[in-house]
């Protein structure tokens, strides 16, 4: 099939939503004029209305403004964690896939061990040792994502190394490094942007999850996980505080998944 993949409306919508989230993270005041920290006790726990589109929280802060400003933390920590995972995973995967057998064994076993700690717990332990804070959170979440990237890169390198085109290239008297640079690396790293997009959703969930547990930014910062954590106490009287931050979070994650899947399908069409 040589036809380009149809760009479906769902992919366009997802890209737009992702763009919106990025805009909210970079320049939130463009999307709302309300200060997310402005508390008005007279308007405590107001349901959605024309004035407050998705209602207010206990302190009478506008929920929509808080959701818009909350994008920043989730996206920064999520992106940071993915970058950490991709960088570390790629280096480890390349070393394991292209290096000598003992190095492969060493790295592969280390990754097995890393996998054995459930990722939330890994992050918890990491935070327990290093203390909270954005850089530590990024490292803690990034650590859990390393195995999947490292394994994919390793297997891609091995597929490329044993491929017909590498065997063929070695019959032209090309130096080894040229073969690795020209054939192995580009083919092995091709799927990485896709995996990173798919991983972004997970990292954002991880980051809001840590905030939810109280290990991320502290009140009164506007952060989705933190807002959800707060909402538990007033769910009976103010359901909207527990629903809308989650809708925002889920929308961003779904969008990343839809775009990532589309990129993946487009990439797989090449073969």
């Amino acid at each position, binding site marked *: 099939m040589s036809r380009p993949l149809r760009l479906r409306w769902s992919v366009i919508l997802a890209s737009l939503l992702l763009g919106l989230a990025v805009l909210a993270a970079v320049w939130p005041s463009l999307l709302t004029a309300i200060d997310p920290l402005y508390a008005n006790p007279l308007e405590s726990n107001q349901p959605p209305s024309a004035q407050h589109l998705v209602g207010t929280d206990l302190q009478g802060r506008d929920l929509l403004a808080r959701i818009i400003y909350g994008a920043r933390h989730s996206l920064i920590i999520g992106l940071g964690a993915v970058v950490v995972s991709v960088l570390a995973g790629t280096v480890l995967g390349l070393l394991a896939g292209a290096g000598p057998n003992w190095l492969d064994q060493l790295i592969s076993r280390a990754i097995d061990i890393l996998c054995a700690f459930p990722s939330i717990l890994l992050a918890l332990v990491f935070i327990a040792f290093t203390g909270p804070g954005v850089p530590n959170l990024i490292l803690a979440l990034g650590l859990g994502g390393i195995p999947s990237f490292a394994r994919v890169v390793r297997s891609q390198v091995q597929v490329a190394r044993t491929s*017909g*085109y590498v*065997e*063929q*290239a070695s*019959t*032209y*008297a090309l130096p080894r490094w040229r073969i690795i640079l020209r*054939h192995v690396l580009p083919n092995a790293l*091709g799927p990485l942007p896709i995996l990173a997009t798919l991983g972004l959703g997970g990292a954002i969930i991880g980051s809001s999850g840590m905030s939810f547990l109280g290990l991320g930014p502290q009140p009164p910062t506007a952060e989705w996980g933190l807002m959800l954590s707060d909402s538990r106490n007033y769910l009976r009287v103010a359901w909207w505080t527990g629903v809308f931050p989650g809708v925002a979070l889920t929308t961003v994650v779904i969008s990343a998944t839809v775009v990532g899947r589309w990129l993946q399908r487009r990439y797989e069409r090449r073969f």
Partner: protein
Amino acid sequence: MTALVSIDNLSVSFTGRHRVDAVKGLSLSVRPGQAVALVGESGSGKSVTARSIVGLTGPDSVVTADRFEVAGRDALSLSERQWRQLRGGAIGFVLQDALTALDPLRTVQQEISEVLRAHKVVPRRQIDQRVQDLLRDVGVDDPEFRAKQYAHQLSGGLRQRALIASGLAGQPDLLVVDEPTTALDVTIQAQILALLRAHRERGTAMLVISHDLAVVSQLADYVIVMNDGLAVEEGPTEEVLTHPAHPYTRDLLSAIPSQASRGRRLSQGRVDLVAAAELAAPVRTDQVDDPRFYSVAADGVTVQPVLQASGVTKFFPLPGGRGRRRAVADVDLSLFPGQKLGIVGESGSGKSTLARVLLGLIAPDQGEVRVAGESWATSDRAAWRRLRRQVQFISQDSIGSFDPRYTVAEIIAEPILGQLDPDQVQDRVRRLLGVVGLPERVLSVSPRLLSGGQAQRVAICRALALRPTVIICDEPVSALDVSIQAQVLDLLNELNSATGTALAFISHDLGVVRHLVDQVIVMNNGFVVEQGDVEAVFDQPRHPYTQSLIQAIPQLPTHRQGEIT
């Protein structure tokens, strides 16, 4: 007698995103005890026709016919339940490639008894016994033991027999066999053909689907030649194969490489020999005294082999550290300039390993390979690079040998990049493409869009780009349809004579080897069992293994060659 299958004007279309008309008005009838063959190349619609007979063309298909009777019933109005009674009951179906056609998670016993249960052929208690009887009937020794095994534990021949047994389990009147011997070694193929023949003689009617005219001639008494969804010619097998009336049938027959086709072209079209010689000959006219080929000594001029193996042995470790297996054992060979050497053997004979040792991709454990007198084991990097460029490689899976990110132009240019300036490279690529008969527009195309024949031509272009003295071809035509195979073989043959590039040609297909090469070595279990001139080896094989191989080649009815030109 009423026909088992009687079809008039059958059409099968697939209505997916693109409409595909797979069969366009075919008529077919099979009478009891008759063996009818549908022959054609890939995409001719023969397999779809076979599947329409059991009502399994798939959910997106539309089947129409003026008349479509199967086992005395009107198939166009059969309910799903009635179809199921036919499938496995009146009609047995044997798919190609038993490794994938048998469920890998189920034993032979479970697979065969599925038919017995579905059609209640025998009472429940007797199922085990019947499975063993069926296996014995298709020539499986020790059926009690084999019945408990899985498909992947059986050798190709046994696997195919088990699949045939499951097709016969419902005591069908008609057995449909789709490519029954494809992917089997020639000796196993002969056994399976004998088995099917024996069942035919016992009265089971057959519909044989095959791309191989020689296989068909062994089995069928009536043949229908299909091309692009249509029957182009039909008639009694002997008649069609010896006096083909339709040009397509004639082309198909004349494209088959064999002893008789030696020395003539298999296909139409011709290579520009002058351009080929100019572009790709390893020795240019101004360097005839190239020391790679001749050594001048006091007692005269001796011709030097371009490729020479002496005592080459290669071991492979067995999985799980259970010792090692000898893949190539003590092989000696010499290939002289311009010569064509065939290396034949069945699967597992070590011929592909030998190819990689000759190429210098893997080092032999014992012995050495010399290219124009210099060993691969040389420590001189510059010399080694010189050798590298003299030996080029064409593999069976040429699509896999192209970097998927490259265009055709980049693929062909890669070996010569950096040796010539960019304009010269482009020019050379373009002219090479002309020599192998590909249009220039493929240059900007990605290799995955090429057809099998085009891909093989691009691979040939790339191999020629460095002006090698030897090209090693590992099964270069075995994945191709016979007419495309013919074109590629003609191309290789003519390039060899135009440029003087020697060929080492590895193949399991004895007909191809017999057609093409001058010298042949026969391999079995890593050993060379026989070698010599191709005529001598094929006409008077001395080693019993060679004799059995040559005996097993299915023969077309003779005396056809003289009549076709």
